[in-house]
């Protein structure tokens, strides 16, 4: 790739923290002869279809959605691990209103829980946690978009909200809600990986572009781990987010090298739920490390 004509990657303005913003801000893509073409916002539910339809090149969403899309015939593959759930920086937080008597998983019996959609992390991780505590049959799930959950909690329309960043950052910082636990509670956050995926066509035709993209991504992730505050500010500026609520949201393992463990966790889970046929999907086929310069086999 010559400096004169950079390779273009079509990319959506993701509504949650993404190191791609940082790398773009710092000019690191240009250094690798890449150019991010921001196509605008695409609502979360359309990110997978948009990649599958080749409208954008790369995006990130939770593993179960990639697995069900593959089952539906979409030719998608994970090319890099994204953010991980840690106790301090989880993928999701489970929140209640400040006055709520709910303190732990046991108190959830018979309560109403708001999730942003069925069929993904919001539903499944909590369900798994509830099941392990024998409570899963008693819970009433309703769909409430993340943006409306604070209001639903405040009005007492739901008892528990399941929020992602940056929404949980805001409510926790403002004291509008109280955290009872996070998704780290399930298997130490293994299912909390937020991976990057692309279309098989791109893997076939533009491997070199992918390799350079992952390289920049890892650079930005590492930098984010060291500069959470500043990364948050960059994201907030890019998104037009109120700077007061900008913080650091994600932890990245150096190298962003995906492995079988989180993927297999989800395969097993979805097979158990009857959402995937047993034995058809192997973790190895879902991701590739071919383009990861940090992968050492």
């Amino acid at each position, binding site marked *: 790739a010559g400096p004169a004509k950079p390779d273009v990657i079509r990319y959506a303005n993701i509504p949650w923290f993404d190191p791609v913003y940082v790398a773009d801000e710092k000019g690191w893509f240009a250094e690798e002869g890449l150019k991010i073409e921001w196509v605008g916002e695409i609502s979360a*539910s*359309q990110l*997978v*279809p948009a990649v*599958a*339809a080749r409208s954008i090149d790369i995006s990130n969403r939770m593993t*179960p*959605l990639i697995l*069900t*899309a593959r*089952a*539906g*015939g*979409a030719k998608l593959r994970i090319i890099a691990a994204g953010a991980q759930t840690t106790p301090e920086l989880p993928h999701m937080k489970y929140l209640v209103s400040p006055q709520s008597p709910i303190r732990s998983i046991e108190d959830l019996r018979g309560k109403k829980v*708001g999730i942003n*959609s*069925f*069929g*993904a992390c919001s539903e499944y991780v909590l369900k798994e946690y509830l099941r392990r505590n024998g409570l899963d049959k008693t819970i*009433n*799930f*309703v*769909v*409430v*978009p993340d*943006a*409306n959950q604070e*209001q*639903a909690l405040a*009005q007492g*329309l*739901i008892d528990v909200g399941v929020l992602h960043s940056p929404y949980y950052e805001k409510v926790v910082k403002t004291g509008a809600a109280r955290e009872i636990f996070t998704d780290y509670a399930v298997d130490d956050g293994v299912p909390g990986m937020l991976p990057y995926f692309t279309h098989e066509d791109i893997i076939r035709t533009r491997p070199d572009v992918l390799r350079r993209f992952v390289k920049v991504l890892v650079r930005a992730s590492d930098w984010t781990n060291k500069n959470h505050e500043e990364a948050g500010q960059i994201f907030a500026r890019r998104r037009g987010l109120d700077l007061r609520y900008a913080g650091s949201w994600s932890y990245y393992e150096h190298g962003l090298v995906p492995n079988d463990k989180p993927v297999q966790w989800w395969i097993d889970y979805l097979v158990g739920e009857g*959402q995937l046929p047993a034995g058809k999907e192997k973790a190895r086929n879902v991701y590739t490390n071919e383009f990861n310069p940090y992968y050492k086999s």
Partner: protein
Amino acid sequence: MQGRILQVGVILGILALWEGLPQSGVINPNFLTPLSDVVATLWQLVVSGQLAQHAAISLQRIAYGLGVSILIGVPLGLGMGWWRTLEQAFDGPLQAGRQISAFALFPVFILFFGIGEVSKVVIVFWASVWPIILNTTAGVKGVDAVLVRAARSMNANGWTLLRKVVIPAAAPSIFTGIRLGGAYAFMVLVAAEMIGANAGLGFLVLNSQEVFRIPQMYAAIVALVIFGLALNRLLLGIERSATSWRQEAGA
């Protein structure tokens, strides 16, 4: 007769394209599921009883939402068509209101109506009431002044005049509004079932999208369309019997 043949031809043509294009690979079958697969999926939903469950709750929401639309929209439209004062008074807020997507107002809806059944019914109402108001108003304004004059000459006024002259004369227009409203009620079901739902045909569509079950998405859409068509048929039947003089008189 010719129309019938053409009608069947057009429908078969569309169905054939729907089956053929994805089957032949001209269009990615992952996105446009071939008709046969959609039918099979729909059948499974029927057999498993899931469809009945989703449809029941959605149809209830539509019945309430559209019902309220008619109960509010028709009288309001009649009033606004009849009394210039009333039209002047409410025209502004109503014109303003009907630009606003229920979507954009999610926070306000949640604030006032919560996330239960009420908010869904209100969203259906919000989408379907405008054509009913507007067409009723327009229908009343278009009533031949000569007929009103004749009725008034026989001392008909107020409610009687409305019931015996204005409503029958405006009926075709009012029904057009109600049928449009019905279509939008189905159209907005998807949005209505975006908050606080865990069942319903619109919910099924969205959820199928989210988990990329495209055949199920189409099956849910087909179910929506079938119920929508049934409602349209029903409304058309009521309209026909209410304005039978038009057919009889060959006008």
